[in-house]
């Protein structure tokens, strides 16, 4: 049992629980990014990029208790 620190960057924060851009999530065991998003009821297609502990990772990557996970919104323009 442990906690994961979540950060959400950009406009998709409005689709996260409570529209919070920083929060903690309890996880009982290592899980994947995709599973974590499913638990948060966030469509993984809303997320452009994921960093775990400061490094870019695929959505299939494993998250461990104590990790810091940062979700990025897609830039809307260019």
């Amino acid at each position, binding site marked *: 049992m442990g906690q994961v620190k979540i950060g959400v*960057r*950009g406009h998709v924060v409005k689709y996260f629980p409570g529209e919070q851009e920083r929060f903690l999530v309890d996880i009982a065991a290592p899980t994947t990014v995709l599973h974590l998003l499913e638990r948060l009821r966030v*469509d993984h*297609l809303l997320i*452009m990029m994921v960093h775990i502990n400061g490094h870019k990772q695929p959505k299939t990557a494993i998250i461990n208790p104590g990790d810091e996970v940062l979700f990025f919104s897609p*830039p*809307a323009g*260019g």
Partner: protein
Amino acid sequence: MNGYAGNILRVDLTNRVSRIEPLPEELADNFIGGRGFVAKLMWDEIPAGADPLGPDNKIIMAPGPLTGAFLPGAGKLEFGAKSPASGGYGDSNVGGHISPEIKQAGFDAIIISGQASTPVYLLIDDFNVAIHEAGHLWGKGAIETETALKHELGEQYQICTIGPAGENKVLFACISHDFGRQAGRTGIATVMGSKNLKAIAVHGTKGIPLADPKATLAKGKEMFAACFAKPGFEEWTPQGTAGVTDWVNEVGAFPTRNFQTSYFPQHKNINGEALVSKIKVTDKACFACPIPCGKYSRVKRPGYDVYVEGPEYETIALIGGNTEIDNIEDCAFANYIVDELGLDSISAGNVIGFAMECSQKGIITAEDLGGRTLNFGSVDDFVWVAEAIAHRRGIGAILADGVKRAAAHFGQGSERFAIHVKGVEWTGYEARYAPAMMLSYMTADVGAHHNRSWAITFDVASGRDKLEGKAKRVIELQHIRPLFDMLCLCRLQWVELGFELDWYPQIFQAVTGKTQSFEELLKFSERVWNLTRAYSLREIPGFGRDFDYPPRRFMEEPIPDGPAAGKVMPREVIDRLLDEYYDLRGWDQRGIPSGAKLAEMGLDFVEGVIAPLRS
């Protein structure tokens, strides 16, 4: 008038004279600035039915009340003119540093009219305004011209220029500034070319009046601190907008092979990581930007060694995916070529993708092309056509008028895959499986542009097969995003950082002394949206619903492969979206604003022109 420099500069190129007038207070009160000034001044001052490339058209440049102030992203400039591409309302904006400079010189708007008899450039040094001969610059590249003028005048000048494409009146020429930022859309550079105006150089030294300097400083500090505190403040910047490339492919919305499909298998060769690892030199910011999206790059390969700002996402999508140039170096090289020629990289990639498909289908023959074919994936072919377009050589003379007119010329069913709305080429999001995004492109006032409303995440979150709620959200975004173009701020702090919209009325109050809630500010934006619609209704015969449809490809051809395979948006779906959109806007089913809506918006002055169109 706090927040405003207090003056309008008028330049008459025919007679080579200029005049400084006070900024009318009611213009500032009712239309705020930037895009608002552009829309109102176009309505009032460009004679109805003016030839977009004749002396009666005017170029309007307008910063906003927050431009140049101490807050994140305060560096945008709005350009406007009657668009030679659409024949209706046209605007385009640019970042960099020229917008604050114009205000420091003392101006809230510059209105350029007439037509010079020989090439000229406009030199503004505070209130000293001069029109100089530019024969020595004519024919030079856009960035080459900026370099030459900096050399001639000094580094302290902020300069915007056109390249050969603008001179030769290519309908998708772009205005270039700060070595790689462009006001690319709707052909404002074409209007500059028609006026023989090669460049505008500005230097200003004056402060901009603030209602409350102490509050502005305090609020600005809070705003920057809030940006710094956002999750991922530092992690987004390295790739900038190019970082979205993989995601757009993941959701099946990436323009590929002239929008034949929406997924490009080689996208990882042209994404943000490829840009950073292979070609980036430095991040390059517009005025007061904490998260610079500008990536300045160098590409060195046998045969070339060039510097270019970019490629940013739109260029990657339209040059990379849409013409299938599958490596970041060649994308950057093609980007450099169109930048120097002064072609909008979005429309250029779209038009050249169209030409490649025409060649593939035998609609353009080897005979038309001086014995060659145009092939997707060939950077040589891309460069060859780009140069032909900019100089209006051979087939380039037809393509130079954009895909709508080129398709009308070529016929043979090519209009089915001429990917535009209102004569302005579609940008970097394929929308056959994104109804809100589709509606955004259809109804954007300037033509198929993403910056009025960007709604793909909304489509994903609310259900890509559902139509309910889409029109409502598109309208909300069409008021929020253009409000940034009225204040002349960059919207990326809001979109990319999640910077709260509530900040803007607070700094607006500190700078201007005016108290407006964000909702009240949005009402101004809705007023301008109705005014730009009225402008196009006045200028384009038969304008209305028929001009709000996407190309037939999107209504008739299912996407062949990728994550959105099989998706298409039939005409009845398009009609449902439009019906609801017009209802919610208070427009009739032909897309004409009702008298009640115009009155509600304080636009009674357009009613006399619009009323006869309703019957």
